[in-house]
Structures are given as structure tokens and as C-alpha cells.
């Protein structure tokens, strides 16, 4: 009876979930990075993968996006085994932004975002009026319409990242996978890009991203996936997940967790060895 219920709940989740990894093992060459991992990406929310360097965050994102083929287990995209889908059909459903992509020098914003239509085009039909409308919308959604004629390499880092996100939107997907979208950006630009990601979430997109900055991850996501050594340590809403114990376990970090004065999420205040008041020095995190 209970088992039946569980099965029913599981299949309901699988139907709703956009992306699901089931018992996934993946690695590079002979080295296994992720071993038997299960994760579910709920629809309509921002899921952020966090964890220490080398824990397999990007590997998981690359596996979910089909860049890496798991040696065992399956990734389901809207219920279908992602490995069995045509590459093109995956690209119509799922937009992927790799870490620090580089555009050819001199390429304009319009040309770059227009390339996002590739999965919908063919040798004969390289630029339809649909393409134009979708690209115009993608440019507008990311606030870069005014930059359309500018070469991408003349833009600031933040603008450039907006343009790349615009390209993945032009694919016509509502499922975005972003690998460290704020790398190399100063804090103001990082906030700007994450506000954009939140706008897209408000507009109905499902987002999975990898972030390094824990406070930004906490502020901007509804679902945190905390990884350590290729496995998931905790998963859930930042308010439930972020604790001093977890930070210590995942990162070996001593920190205080306080209420964010400007938001409704926890705020992490790291405690280092130096530059802290005497009563925090040398104590364990709690």
C-alpha cells in the first residue's frame, strides 16, 4: 500500500519535473566524478548547485545538459531519456550557457543572439520571420535591444553575459542551464545578471545554475543543491538547507548564519582566522 503510494508520488514528480537524473554515474576518462547520483529539477523555480571546488557541480550541469554522457543511469528531459533524443530536439527544449563562452571578434549582438535560432533552422530556411520575432523578443527580455548592432567584444562583462543569456532564450526554451553565469563579473554586474535570471524565472522559466557565491545562491534560488565529492549533501529551500553545520560539512567553513536584513533568506557571514572580533576567534562555527 505504502509502496504503491510512493510509486504514484514518484511518477507524479517525474511527470512534473523538467529534468531528472536517476542513479547517474559520470566521469572523465577513467576518473569517476559523480557516482550514483539522483536529482530532480522542479519546474518553474531557480535551482542552484553549490559546493566546494572540484565537487562535480559543473560535471552535473554538463550531464543534465547532455554535454557528458553518463556511464550509468539516465537523465530524463520532460520524461524522455536525453541520450535517445535528437541533439536538435534537446536544443529546442533546453538552453545551455557554458562557462565563459567566447564570441568571434567583431560579431554583433544581433548576429550572436540570432545564432540561438540554429536548432529551428535548416540549410534552406536560415532566417524566417518567426526567427526574427523570437530574436527581437529575446533581445527585449534581456534588455539588450539597444545594443543589437554593437560588436559583442566591445561590451562590458555584464552586458556580454546578458547577450549570451539572450542567445539561449532565442532557442525558444523555457529551461535554462547556466554554468557560473557571474564568473569574472564585479558584484554590481553579478547582481544585474542574477536579477535578469530572476526576471526570466518570473516569466515562467525553469533555471538550473552553478554559482560560487553562497550568499548570491541563497538570495536568488528557491532550490539549493549542495554537493560534496560527487554526491548530494542536501537539497531544498535555502531557509531549510543553509545552516552552520552544513557549511562546515560541505565547505569546511566556519560561518554564522543570520537573517538577511534586505531579503527573507539566510545570510552567511564567514569567520576566518583573522580580522574577526576576539570572541569569534578560534571557536567552532556555532
Amino acid at each position: 500500500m505504502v509502496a504503491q503510494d510512493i510509486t504514484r508520488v514518484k511518477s507524479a514528480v517525474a511527470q512534473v519535473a523538467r529534468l531528472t537524473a536517476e542513479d547517474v554515474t559520470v566521469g572523465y576518462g577513467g576518473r569517476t566524478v559523480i557516482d550514483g547520483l539522483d536529482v530532480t529539477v522542479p519546474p518553474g523555480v531557480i535551482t542552484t548547485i553549490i559546493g566546494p571546488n572540484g565537487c562535480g557541480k559543473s560535471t552535473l550541469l554538463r550531464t543534465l545538459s547532455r554535454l557528458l554522457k553518463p556511464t550509468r543511469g539516465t537523465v530524463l528531459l520532460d520524461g524522455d531519456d536525453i541520450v535517445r533524443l535528437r541533439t536538435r530536439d534537446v536544443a529546442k527544449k533546453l538552453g545551455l550557457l557554458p562557462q565563459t563562452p567566447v564570441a568571434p571578434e567583431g560579431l554583433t549582438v544581433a548576429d550572436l543572439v540570432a545564432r540561438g535560432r540554429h536548432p529551428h533552422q535548416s540549410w534552406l530556411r536560415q532566417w524566417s520571420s518567426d526567427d526574427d520575432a523570437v530574436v527581437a523578443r529575446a533581445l527585449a527580455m534581456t534588455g539588450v535591444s539597444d545594443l543589437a548592432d554593437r560588436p559583442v567584444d566591445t561590451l562590458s562583462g555584464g552586458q556580454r553575459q546578458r547577450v549570451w543569456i539572450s542567445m539561449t532564450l532565442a532557442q525558444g526554451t523555457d529551461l535554462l542551464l547556466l554554468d557560473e553565469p557571474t564568473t569574472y563579473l564585479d558584484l554590481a554586474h553579478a547582481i544585474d545578471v542574477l536579477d535578469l535570471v530572476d526576471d526570466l524565472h518570473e516569466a515562467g522559466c525553469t533555471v538550473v545554475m552553478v554559482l560560487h557565491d553562497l550568499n548570491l545562491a541563497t538570495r536568488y534560488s528557491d532550490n539549493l543543491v549542495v554537493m560534496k565529492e560527487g554526491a548530494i549533501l542536501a537539497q531544498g529551500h535555502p531557509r531549510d538547507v543553509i545552516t552552520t553545520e552544513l557549511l562546515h560539512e560541505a565547505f569546511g567553513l566556519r560561518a554564522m548564519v543570520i537573517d538577511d536584513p534586505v531579503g527573507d533568506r539566510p545570510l552567511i557571514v564567514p569567520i576566518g582566522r583573522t580580522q574577526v572580533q576576539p570572541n569569534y576567534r578560534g571557536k567552532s562555527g556555532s
Partner: protein
Amino acid sequence: MSAEPKAAVLPGVRLGRVSFVWRPWLVAVTLLLAAATFLLFCLSIGIGDFPIGLPQVIATIFGHGEPVDEFVIMDLRLPRALAGLVVGVALGVSGAITQSIARNPLASPDVLGITSGAGAVAVFLVTVSGGTATAIVDSVGLSAAALGGGLGTGLLVYFLAWRRGLDGFRLILIGISVTAVMEAITTWLLATADIRDVARAQAWLVGSLDDRGWDEVRTALWCTLALLAVVSCVAFQFKPLHFGDEVAAGLGVRYARVRAVMLLCAVLLAGAAVSAAGPVPFVALVAPQVALRLTRCPTPPLAASGLVGALLLIGADLVARTALPVGLPVGVVTAAVGGPFLVHLLVRANVR
């Protein structure tokens, strides 16, 4: 062309089910290059010890010429001019593909070992007389054997550079290393060989269009046409590769397969060029870069690169034949003409 109600992001041309982005500058420059290539091609046929006017040349090519002109043009001059055209186009397109794949303007068939491999094999077969070498030359011919050497070296570089994907920088470094080895082998063979063989081998080390007959040209022409057909079919899937493997994969391109096909085409195109004219340096390196700047494209345009290659090669051959004292092969002139022109374009870009 359908009128857009509001300003389009990119202007498009739509004819029924066919549609593409309208780039007037690219189209205009490509058409101009095509016209200039045709003109220079005819001019190159007309100029010689027995000068023939441009109208007569054009009439003869299209089959309405005088019998005297027809003999000179069809039997003597057309093969050489056609060889220049084919070799130039093949090298230009080959260079555009390799530079796009490596995402680096330094990459060209010269750097990737194709020409040096062909040269080393040819010199080996010429200088080492005896059982196997002679048998190979007798059975497949020196050109084909050299072609095999070029292709083999090109593939060797590709597989050595492959490590969980293709890194452009690694491809170039390994290409340069293998090229150095091939050139060392060539030098060693020349140093130890009989002096008469060295003279014969020398022809394989400097590209030349001298004494090209229909036999050499025909093979290169059909190979090049077939390869260009493949390239133009794959070109659409090739476009996203300019952004790197991961973005291309995200856009639904099976990048490893597309890249392998295109690189193989580039290697074969360079091989066809080498088999027809020997190693002509610099065309494959400079033509895509010149085409890119003339068309104001961010990435090497395939068609324009081929046309610039043809212009460069036919022009260099014309200069070598007419303006300079006898005996200078076309390969020497391409470097002398192409180099300064690229420098000029780069300097002008700096000033602007």
C-alpha cells in the same frame, strides 16, 4: 523579399521556403571578387608570347573562337590558368576551414603538416631509388603518392591533437612540430641524395604552375568541385562551431562529426592543390584573413576566401610569368605579394 511591419533585427530575404539573412556588403564583395577572378583568369590566358585580346579569350572559352586562338587557349594556356584557379580556390577554402576549426588565424594546411608531408614523401620517392620506392612511383604516380603523404600527415596531426575534444592551440602546436620533423626529413634526404635527383625533387618543394596539362588539372578540378559541394552542404551546421564546442552542442550541433567532416574536406582540398601545383605557401594562410577583412565578417567567409585565394594565385602566376625575369615559380611570388597585403590590412585596422 517581404516587407517587415516593424524594423527587423536582421533583414531577411524570403523566397517561398528559402530564407536567409540579407548581408548586402558580403554579397557585393563576393560578387566583385568573382568578377575580378574571372577577369584575371581571362587576362592570364590572353597574356603570353602570342597575345590574345580579352573578347577573343572569352569567346573561345565559351566555344565561339577562331581555330588558331582555340588551339593556343584550349591546349596550351587554359590548363595552366585553370590549375591556378582550382589550386587558389582549394587553398583559400581549406585555409578558411582550418582557421575556423582552430579558432586561430595561424592555422592553415601549411602549419598542419599537409604540404610538408606531401613534400617529404615526394622527395623520398625521388631520391631513394630502388625496389619499393620505384614500385610505388610506377604504380600510383608521384603526385598520388605525395598526396597520400600529405593526407597521412594531416590525419596524424589531427589524431595526435585529439584529447577529449579538439583544442585549436594544441592542434597548431602539434602541426608545427610534425611539420618541423617532415622538413628535417626532407632536408636530410636532399643532403644525402644524388645531385640530379635533388634537382627533380626541388620541383616538389616550391609550388609551380609550369607545364600543367589537362591530366593534372582534370583530377584536381573534379576533386575540388566534389569537395566544395560537400563543404557547402555542411557549412550551415558548421556555423555554430565558431563559438566553441560547448555552445555548438547547446545549439543542437553534433560538433565532433561536423568538425571531422569539415577538417577532412580541408585536408583533401589542400591535398588536391598540392597534387596539382606542389606546395604553394601562404595562400591558405593569407586568403581567409584578406577575405575576412574585405567582407567585414567576424569569421572567415568560405566563398570569398576561395575567390581571394584564386585571385592571389592567378595574379602571382601572372606576375611571375610576365613582370619578373624567367624561372621564378609562383610559390615565391604568392608569399611576396600576399604578405605585404595582409600587413597593410592589419596596419590599416590599427590606425582606424
